[in-house]
């Protein structure tokens, strides 16, 4: 009897693909946007993503980080990732130059419910590094502007210099999107708003029957966005949040990103409030 001793093995799903850094742009202190292109033509051409999804960025010998895609979903061959320096991986990425190569795999996770939002008003609430994951949704809306009602983008940052993509707000406004930046602190050269983002709800009059909310930012900020939205009778299933947890594999195997019953890498990171309500305010959950 012929008896093979071993088995065969499919390719490892966590293998990254080398991608070239083609451009680097400083956005704010400690925050930089990288343009990446897969080296392999076939991989590059077959890659598509939906607004809200993320990739895993890998540096051999250092590690991997989950980073949202911040670019136009209509142009998936050049991917933008806007990264804030945090620890090991993001610091190492910050030392790279145009022409360097990084490992990339994805896209992973759920997307902003843009199909669901057709015909509705959308209020996006972004805090700090929360705007990059929303930017692809803004591009999508600009490309399909007539499909959506009023679109308002509330952007919060600590100081004016920390605002993400300020140079683009006027272009968005020209496309009929209201953009309201607000900061926690400013001197009097700042002509925009001062105050935390959830406060901006006070000057909006969302129509709860046709408003959808997308929010991404620090979890405390999102909690208060939820409170303000609920106080204005926006239904739970139309409030969407992008959550963040430690993430190692991005494909549901490592267990780190669990938030109760949900794996944030698979069912998330974008979830509706009614999916997470029982756990959202539980301490140390």
């Amino acid at each position: 009897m012929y008896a093979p001793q071993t088995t065969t093995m499919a390719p490892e799903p966590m293998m990254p693909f080398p991608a070239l850094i083609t451009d680097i742009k400083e956005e704010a202190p400690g925050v930089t946007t990288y343009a990446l292109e897969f080296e392999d033509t076939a991989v590059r051409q077959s890659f598509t993503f939906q607004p809200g999804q993320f990739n895993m960025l890998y540096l051999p010998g250092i590690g991997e980080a989950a980073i949202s895609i911040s670019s136009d979903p209509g142009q998936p061959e050049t991917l933008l990732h806007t990264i804030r320096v945090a620890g090991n991986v993001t610091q190492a990425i910050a030392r790279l130059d145009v022409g360097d190569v990084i490992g990339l795999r994805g896209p992973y996770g759920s997307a902003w419910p843009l199909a669901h939002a057709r015909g509705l008003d959308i209020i996006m609430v972004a805090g700090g590094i929360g705007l990059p994951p929303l930017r692809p949704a803004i591009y999508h809306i600009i490309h399909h502007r007539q499909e959506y009602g009023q679109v308002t983008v509330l952007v919060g940052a600590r100081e004016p210099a920390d605002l993400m993509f300020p140079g683009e707000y006027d272009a968005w406004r020209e496309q009929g999107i209201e953009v309201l930046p607000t900061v926690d602190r400013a001197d009097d050269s700042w002509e925009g708003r001062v105050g935390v983002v959830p406060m901006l709800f006070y000057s909006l009059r969302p129509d709860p029957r046709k408003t959808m909310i997308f929010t991404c930012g620090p979890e405390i900020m999102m909690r208060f966005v939820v409170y303000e939205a609920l106080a204005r009778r926006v239904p739970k299933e139309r409030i969407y949040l992008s959550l963040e947890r430690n993430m190692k594999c991005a494909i549901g195997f490592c267990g780190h990103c669990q938030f109760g019953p949900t794996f944030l890498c698979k069912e998330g990171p974008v979830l509706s409030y009614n999916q997470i309500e029982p756990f959202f305010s539980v301490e140390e959950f």
Partner: protein
Amino acid sequence: MTPHIPPLNAHVVIDKPALQTLFDALQTAGYTLIGPTIREEAIVYDEIGRIEELPIGWTDEQGPGHYRLHERGDGRYFAYVVGPHSWKKYLYPARLTLFRTRRQDKSFTVETGEEPPPKYAFIGARGCELAAIAVQDRVFLEGPIQAATYKARREHAFLLAVNCTEPGETCFCVSMNSGPRCESGFDLALTELDDVFLLQVGSQIGAEMLAGSGWRPAGAFELSHARRLLAEAETQMGRTLETRDLPNLLYDNLDHPRWDEVAERCLSCMNCTMVCPTCFCADITDVSDLSGENTARVRVWDSCFNPDFSYVHGGNLRPSIRARYRQWLTHKLASWIDQFGTSGCVGCGRCITWCPVGIDLTEEVAAIRGEG
């Protein structure tokens, strides 16, 4: 001459020493045999080749935080329950290279991490263990993405299962509906009778492996004897766990004072998650050679009891042991069901036996139910 093999689903008997012919057939067919054997005063799973390497005549005494081997003074091959190891050690190794990269100028190449694994034959898997393998199958094979390294090990694994006739003090498979009888997912299922092994044929390959064993069809007496032993075993569970509406019980009690009490005892040592046959959480890290040219991306078992498990830049989201124990138990018994349509606990009792302070999840659940 076509070999003399039993039909599928048949019940046959072999003499106990004829188990060696089965081992031999498996080895000839290219399998690496893994089975129970005694190492450092415990029954563990390791590579074996001969039936004498089985813990014949030994049994284990188990309790919360307690494990000891005894000689029985009889010739029983399988008169013990599960030890600190589980088959996850082979299907989902504690440390495994996922892929390697090699630097090339500014770029790098990516290569497979390891050679394809051997074909394993698992000797002596119990009902709870078959259930645990089925649970990990759901995690690693039945989602949108398959875990290649698990699949390669699992796909060709041969399972010689054993029905438990003498459950242990920390066993509660009846509560979890996973034993003591092996219902499915085996190639052969063995029940140890006084003089013979009764075998149920679960697959074609299982049947073929019996070709040289001198098997004969089981008689009515043998079948009824086995049935009686298993019915008795069901009544001898060391523990029970009331599973009625368990997910809601835990979700509704995330702030129950019992979590504080258990946190005072729990050492967050991670033993429970290491011995659990279904726990699958892992960390993934890079290991580079001295030149930094070659890097291996390595997966290692992790645990929700590890403080860094919930680390996001700036801090750990579950700094307290209370939150970590709550995460473990609610995952096992509640959210696992939402995630994979099955409980994450199969009632093997390992986490009770191997907890250094004897924390018993069945007791914790009862306390939260208000029955403590």
